[in-house]
C-alpha cells in the first residue's frame, strides 16, 4: 500500500493481489481493464478510492441472490458432485447436521460405490448428523443406489435427500455420463422434487476449478458452489471468475473438518479476506470493545 498516485506500480500491486488470490489471469486482466476504464470515466485520482471501487464491485458481483437456500423449504434432492478429494462427503455430513438441527428429515444416499471405504466414511457422517443412510455395495451401480434412495426418501417422507457421488475428474467422459444418468433417474422418478445441485470446489484449487465448474454444469446444471477448506491460507478467488462466467453463486464455505464447520457464504467476508482486510463488523468494534 502507501501509493500516492494511480500508476503502473499501483495496478501491478492489484494484479498481484488478484492473481495470488487465485482469480486467474483472465478474470484478473478483465477486472483491471474494467477498473481502469471506470477510473478514467469517474476521474478518480486517489489510489485508496480506486481500491475501494474494485473491492465494492467484486462484492456486488458475488451477491448470492434471494433464493439460494430455497431448497430448505421444499421436498428436495441435493446432488453433491465434484472432482476427487475436494470435500463432498464431508460437506454432506455437515449440511445434514445443519438440516437435522432444523428438525428436517434427511436421507443420504451413498452413491460413491467406487472409492475404498467411501460408504463407511459416509456412514460415520450419517451417524454424527443423525441422518438416514441408504447404502450401496462397493462396485455396485451408483444409478441403482440413486433409484433406491429416491424410493426410500419418498416412502419416508424425507424433507431432503442428499446424494454423495464419487469424485470424478471432469475430463473423464464416461464418469461424467454416469452423472447424467443419475440425474435422469431423479428427473424421472422424482419430478416433483426441488432440485439443488452443488459442485464442491477446493479453495486451494487454481484456475482448473473454472473448467471443473463448466464441465459439471454441462452435464448437471449446477445451482450452487460449495467452497471448502477456506480455513487454510488459500482465498478461493477462482469463485469470482466462475461467478462472472457462469453466474453460479457460492452458497456455502467449508471452514474445517468438524460437523459445525460449514457456513453460508458471505460476500463481504470473502472479498475482505481476498484483500486481507479485517471483517467489516470487526474493524471499529474490536478497538472500542477491547475484547
Amino acid at each position: 500500500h502507501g501509493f500516492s498516485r494511480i500508476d503502473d506500480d499501483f495496478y501491478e500491486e492489484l494484479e498481484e493481489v488478484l492473481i495470488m488470490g487465485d482469480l486467474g489471469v483472465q478474470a484478473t486482466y478483465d477486472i483491471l481493464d474494467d477498473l481502469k476504464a471506470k477510473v478514467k470515466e469517474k476521474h478518480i485520482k486517489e489510489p485508496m478510492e480506486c481500491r475501494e471501487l474494485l473491492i465494492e464491485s467484486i462484492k456486488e458481483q458475488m451477491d448470492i441472490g434471494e433464493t439460494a437456500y430455497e431448497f430448505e423449504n421444499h421436498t428436495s434432492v441435493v446432488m453433491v458432485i465434484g472432482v476427487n478429494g475436494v470435500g463432498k462427503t464431508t460437506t454432506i455430513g455437515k449440511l445434514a447436521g445443519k438440516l437435522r438441527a432444523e428438525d428436517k428429515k434427511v436421507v443420504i444416499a451413498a452413491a460413491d460405490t467406487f472409492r475404498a471405504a467411501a460408504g463407511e466414511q459416509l456412514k460415520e457422517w450419517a451417524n454424527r448428523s443423525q441422518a438416514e443412510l441408504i447404502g450401496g455395495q462397493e462396485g455396485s451401480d451408483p444409478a441403482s443406489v440413486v433409484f433406491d434412495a429416491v424410493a426410500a426418501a419418498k416412502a419416508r417422507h424425507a424433507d431432503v435427500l442428499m446424494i454423495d457421488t464419487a469424485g470424478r475428474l471432469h475430463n473423464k467422459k464416461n464418469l461424467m455420463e454416469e452423472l447424467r444418468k443419475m440425474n435422469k433417474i431423479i428427473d424421472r422418478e422424482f419430478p416433483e422434487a426441488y432440485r439443488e445441485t452443488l459442485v464442491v470446489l477446493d479453495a486451494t484449487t487454481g484456475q482448473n476449478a473454472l473448467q471443473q465448474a463448466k464441465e459439471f454444469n454441462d452435464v448437471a446444471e449446477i445451482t450452487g458452489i460449495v467452497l471448502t477448506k477456506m480455513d487454510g491460507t488459500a482465498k478461493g478467488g477462482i469463485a469470482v471468475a466462475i461467478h462472472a462466467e457462469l453466474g453460479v453463486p457460492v452458497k456455502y464455505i467449508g471452514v474445517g473438518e468438524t460437523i459445525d464447520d460449514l457456513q453460508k457464504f458471505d460476500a463481504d467476508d470473502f472479498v475482505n479476506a481476498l484483500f486481507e482486510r479485517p471483517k467489516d463488523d470487526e474493524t471499529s468494534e474490536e478497538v472500542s470493545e477491547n475484547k
Partner: protein
Amino acid sequence: MAFDSLTEKLQNVFKNLRSKGRLTEDDVKEALKEIKRALLAADVNFKVVKDFIKSVQERAIGQDVMNGLNPGQMVIKIVNEELINLMGSETTEIQLQPGKAITVIMMAGLQGAGKTTTTAKLAGKFKLKGKKPLLVACDVYRPAAIKQLQVNGEKQGVEVFSMGENHKPANIARAAIEHAQKNGNDLVILDTAGRLHIDEDMMAELEEIKEEVEVHQTILVIDAMTGQDAVNVAKEFNEKVGIDGVIVTKLDGDTRGGAALSVKAVTGKPILYVGMGEKLSDLEQFYPDRMASRILGM
C-alpha cells in the same frame, strides 16, 4: 482450445518483427509478457513467475538470440531449458536403505491430496521390486481412514498395520516398526492424516513422529490442481517438518499443473512420481521435460 498455444502466440509476436531484421530489447520483453501470462495461466506462483522471467530475460537479451535467424524458437528454447532446469533436470527415485535395512517413508500433505491412495500405489510399485511393504494407519481422525487403507492394502496384497483411533500417531509408528522388524518388512510407509500447513498442533504431530522413529523419506503429496497457495503449503511443510521429495497427484486431469513448478522452486526438493488416476497402478515416473511443456501449454 480457447487459447492459442504459447508457441503460436510467440510466433505471432515475432512475425511482426521479422521485417525489421533484428530484435530489440523491447521485442524480447513483449515476448516475455506472453510467457508470463502462460505461466500464470498454468497457476505457477506469481513470485516464482517474476523471478523466472527475470532470469530468462537476462539470458535472452544480449545473446545471439537477438540477431539469430529464428529468435522466436530461440526464446522458446531458453524458456524451456530454464523451466526444465527449475523442475530438476532428471528423474529421481526414492532412496531406499541398503540391503535388508528397513526404509521408513512418511506421507504428508493437505486434506484430500491423495496420500492414502498414493501410499497404496507406492506399496505396489515396491512390492514388484521385491520389497515387503508394511502400510501404517497413522490417520486417526478422518472417518474410515483406517478402513480405506486396509481396503487398498488388500487390493495390493500388502499388510496394513493399525492400532485403531485411540493412540498417538507417533506411538503407532513406533509399534509398526517393531512389527516390521519381527515380520521381515523392509519398507514401512506411514499414511498420515491430511492437515493444513498453518495448523500448529497437527504440524507438531508430524515432527513428533519424526522424533519417535527414524523417517528416511518424508514425501509431500500435492494435488496438481493447486493454485497460488502451493508455495505456502510446500514452504511450511518443508520448514516445519522437512520434506525429501514430492509426489504430484491427479495429473490425469486437464490442469496445466503449475503447482509442481512452484513447489519445486520453493523447496528445491525433487518431484519423484506423478499420480495419473484413481487405480492403484496409476503412478508414473516424473519427467521434467514433459512437465515443462505441459506447464507452458506447448
